[in-house]
C-alpha cells in the first residue's frame, strides 16, 4: 500500500490516475479547490478500493497555506511516499499578451505555486530517503510558440526546475517524474477543437501510473509526443520563428 498525495485531485487526469491507485488499494489524500467535487471524487475512490481517502480544500494560489495542507496530508496518511501534482490553468494567450497581470497570474498558478509546494515536499522526501514526486508539466514547455508561450514559459520553467530537482534528489533515492502530456480531452481544453492527436484522460492516466511504477524520469503521453516534440525542437530558430505554430 502506497501513501499518495494528489494535488489538483479533481482534474480529469488526476481523477483517472487516482482510480488506478484506488484499485491497488493505496491510501490517498486529495487536495483541490472545490469541496463538493472533492467529496464526489473521494467517494468514488473509496468504492473502487482505496485503503483510505481523505481530502482538504485549498486554492493552490494561496501559497502561505501550502505548509499547513502538507502537514495535514502527512498526518492523515501517516507518512508519504508518492506525490502527484496535477493542477494547472490554460489561460487565454491573447489576454495574457494584452495584460501583464494575466500573464503573471498564469505564471503563478502553473509555475510559482508548484515550486512553493515542491520545496517542502522535496525536503521531506530527501530526509526520509525514499519516494516519488510526479508533476504534470506539458509539451508546451518544450519550445516557445506564439499560440501559447505564456503557458509554455510556465511549464518550461517547471520542467527545468524538475530536472534540477531530479539531479539533486538522485542521491537520496527519490524519483522525480516530469509528465508531458500532449493534447488531452479535459475540461481545461473544452473550448479547443479536437483532432486525431487528442488523447483521453484515461490513456494519459495509465501512462502516468506506469511511469510512477517504473520510476521513469520524463514521459511524453501518449508516447508519440516524444517524436513530435523532438522534431519541433530540432527546427532551427531562423525557420521556426517564421512558422505559425
Amino acid at each position, binding site marked *: 500500500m502506497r501513501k499518495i498525495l494528489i494535488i489538483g485531485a479533481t482534474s480529469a487526469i488526476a481523477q483517472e490516475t487516482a482510480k488506478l491507485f484506488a484499485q491497488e488499494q493505496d491510501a490517498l489524500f486529495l487536495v483541490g479547490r472545490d469541496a463538493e467535487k472533492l467529496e*464526489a471524487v473521494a467517494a468514488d475512490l473509496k*468504492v473502487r478500493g482505496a485503503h483510505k481517502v481523505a481530502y482538504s480544500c485549498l486554492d493552490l494560489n494561496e501559497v502561505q497555506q501550502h505548509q499547513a495542507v502538507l502537514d495535514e496530508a502527512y498526518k492523515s496518511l501517516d507518512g508519504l511516499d508518492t506525490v502527484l501534482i496535477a493542477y494547472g490553468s490554460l489561460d487565454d494567450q491573447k489576454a495574457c499578451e494584452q495584460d501583464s497581470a494575466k500573464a503573471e497570474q498564469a505564471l503563478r498558478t502553473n509555475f510559482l505555486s508548484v515550486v512553493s509546494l515542491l520545496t517542502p515536499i522535496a525536503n521531506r522526501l530527501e530526509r526520509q530517503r525514499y519516494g516519488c514526486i510526479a508533476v504534470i508539466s506539458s509539451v508546451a514547455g518544450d519550445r516557445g510558440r506564439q499560440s501559447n508561450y505564456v503557458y509554455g514559459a510556465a511549464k518550461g520553467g517547471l520542467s527545468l526546475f524538475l530536472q534540477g530537482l531530479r539531479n539533486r534528489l538522485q542521491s537520496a533515492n527519490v524519483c522525480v517524474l516530469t509528465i508531458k502530456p500532449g493534447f488531452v480531452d479535459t475540461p481545461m481544453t*473544452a473550448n479547443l477543437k479536437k483532432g486525431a492527436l487528442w488523447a483521453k484522460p484515461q490513456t494519459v492516466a495509465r501512462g502516468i501510473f506506469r511511469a510512477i511504477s517504473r520510476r521513469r524520469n520524463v514521459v511524453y503521453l501518449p508516447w508519440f509526443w516524444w517524436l513530435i516534440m523532438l522534431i519541433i525542437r530540432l527546427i532551427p530558430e531562423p525557420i521556426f520563428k517564421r512558422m505559425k505554430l
Partner: protein
Amino acid sequence: MQSTYQSWGSFPKVSQRIRPIRWGKKPISLPEPSDTVLPHGLGRSYGDVCLNDGGILLTTRSINRFIEFDIDEGVLRCEAGVSLAEILELCVPQGWFLPVTPGTQFVTIGGAIANDVHGKNHHCAGTFGRHVLQFELLRSDGERLLCTPTSNEQYYAATIGGLGLTGLITWAEIKLKRIHHRAMQAESIQFSELDEFFELSQQSDQYYDYTVAWIDCNSQALGRGIFFRGNHVAPDEIPNDWNLPRLNRLPPLLRTMPINLPGFVLNRWTISTFNSLYYKKQRQKIVSKLVDYEPFFYPLDAILEWKQLYGKNGFLQYQFVIPDNDHRMIKEILQTIGASGLGSFLAVLKTFGELASPGMLSFPRPGVTLALDFPIKGAVTFELLERLDEKVREVGGAVYPCKDARLSARHFQAYYPQWTEFAQYVDPRFSSSLWRRVT
C-alpha cells in the same frame, strides 16, 4: 461546440451542440431560452432517441463516479454516466452481478433507466427499472427530485423508460444480483421451426434465468435457429481453474473495425450465407459448456465498432413485441421479412414474461419480441418497416423507441396511448429528435 455525435445506427445524421455535464451536484447551465437539451450517455441507442437535432446534448460520460457500494446487501449507488461495464468490473469480483443487462455493456446506467432496458432474463427479472431503488432527477428549473417508488412516485414512473425527457438523472441506486462465480453454465440448442422455439422457451423459462434465440430470417427454412439458455454457476459447480478467454481478444485493428464496409458487401447472398454457416457451425443438436459471462452476454462487444459493418449509410434496428397467444402473427411477420430479403443476420427472438415494469412508457410487455437489423437500402427498407408497424399494431403490440429512427407519430401513439399522461412529466426544456417526430 458543434459535434459529430451520432447514434449507433449512424442514422439519422444530425447536427447538435454539446454541453458536457462534469459534476452531478452542480446546476445545469442552460443555454438560450429557445434551445432544448437532452441527456446523452454512450450513444448506444440505435436511432434518434439519443439525438437532439438543432439542440443541445448534455453528455453524461464525465459523471461516472461511484458513490456507495454496500457489499453485504448488493446495493450500488453511482452517478448516471457510469457504464454497465464499469459496474461489472467493480461488482463481479465481489460476487454481485447486474440484475438485468442488455446485449452490450457499453451503456450508462442513466441510459439503462431512460430506456428501461431488458435482457435475456426478462421472464424472471423483468426490466432494469424494477431494480432501481432510487435516483435523483435534476429538472431544468434547478429543482432536484429524489425519486423512489414512494416519493415523487409519478416522476419515478415517468423517468423509468422516459427516454431522457423528464430531466437529467444525476445518480441512481440499484439492487444487484448475487452470483457465486463469473462463469455461466450455458447451453445452445438447434431448432428447425418456430413452434419448436416456443416449446423450448416454455420449458426453459422455468429452469433457466437467461433465454434467447437467434433465428434465420432469410433462408427458405424459415424459423430455424439456435436457442441459448443459461444460468450463473451454482456454488457446487464453481470451476477450480478458470482461465477461459473472456471477450474474444481479436487484434485491436479488427476489434475496432476502423473503416465502414462498402454497402454492397452486405447483400442477400452474403447475409444468407453467413446465417447458414452460423446455423451449421453447431454440429450437435445440444451443446452444453461453461463460458465466461462476457461472451455469454456481450458477444458483439468483442468487435467494438461493429456498426461499421453496415457502411456509412447506417442501418435501422427494428424491435417489436406482440402477444404470443397464437403464433400466427409472428410467423406472418417473419415471412414478410424473409420474402423481402432485406433483413440482416442475427435476428434475435425472446419471450417476455409477465413481470410489469414500474415505467410509465416502458416497452416490454408479455409476449414475444423480435429484434433485427436492416441495412438502409433506400425507400424499400422504410416501406417494409411501415408494413410491419401496421401488423404489430393490429395485434396490440409495440415497437421499441430505443432502437427506432423512423416510427410515425400515428403508430407510436397507438402503441403507447399513455403518452399524453407521460407528456405532463416531460421537462419543458428537454426534447429529442424522436420525441418531436412522434408527438
